């Protein structure tokens, strides 16, 4: 393989950072979720790269498991979001803050 593994690792690092940045900066809960998915993908990419570099199938096995867990996590997470927004619909103050999850501090339990 002629593309050096380090390039893939660098790419994974950059992808992860973008995902982290998005998580910290965005206020819409679903977009924050998507940024989490970005980070997971970065991890997957890194695992596959190492699997190739070290010639070990374990990396790919781990990606397999990460995929499963990510799926489960998204399911439950979105279920939670739905449940929350059932109780307290997002405030309709114009078009400025839709689903601004972070406008409500954790100390106010919504359910």
């Amino acid at each position, binding site marked *: *393989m002629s593309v050096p593994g380090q390039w893939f690792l660098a790419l994974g690092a950059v992808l992860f950072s973008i995902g*982290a940045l*998005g998580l910290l900066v965005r206020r819409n*809960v*679903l977009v924050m979720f998507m940024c989490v998915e970005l980070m997971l993908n970065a991890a997957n990419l890194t695992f*596959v790269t190492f699997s190739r570099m070290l010639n070990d199938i374990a990396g790919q096995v781990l990606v397999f498991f990460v995929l499963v867990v990510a799926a489960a996590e998204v399911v439950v997470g979105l279920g939670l979001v739905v449940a929350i927004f059932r109780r307290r619909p997002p405030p309709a103050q114009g078009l400025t803050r839709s689903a601004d999850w972070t406008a409500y501090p954790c100390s106010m339990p919504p359910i």
Partner: protein
Amino acid sequence: MSAAVVSAMSMLATATVVDRLVFVVGAMIILGGALGVVISRNPVHAALMLVTTLFGVAVLFVEQQANFLAAVQVIVYAGAIVVLFLFVIMFLGVDRRENLGEEPLPAQRPLAIGLVVLGLAGLLLLGIDAHWAVGARSVAGPAAGQAGGDVAALGRSVFTTYLFPFEATAALLVIAVVGAVVLARRPRPGYGPDEDIEEPEGAGELPGAERQDAELDDEVTR
């Protein structure tokens, strides 16, 4: 002329160049999509950008001879998870645009950018040229060169060495499904601590607001 083209193409078509080209294109797709997720004001746009990124990742999986994983990536991630995201977006009506200029928390943006840049620098430093990771090699078996390709290698590994985690993830999936059903259920009338909210079609005011206004009016006129 065709011979020159063929020879030129054969020169061009060396494995190295093609590989690198594929990598660059894949990288650009990935990064473009990621930036799109982060910058999009509309959550639907963000979801679509996410799909783009996932495709890019799948391409790079194929390039690294992880074909099975690429397929699974597309099917599960792009085909199921993002669809689920879109369902929820549509269901909850949170598809309005977010005002990216506003940031209520003080110093969040500068700190976030600074820390992320630092983290990236650290990751790159450690990941690129570090030979300090030590430990026992895993015994899962080689990735390349197994009979049956990577699918068989993966299958062999999952069903022998990693059988227990496999079963555990199966259980995890069941639990996730059950959890999702429970969470998304509407509470039966009389069970929930609050009164039942029928439609989260959020165009109206908060349910209690009307009553509060009425009470205030009463007080004023008394």
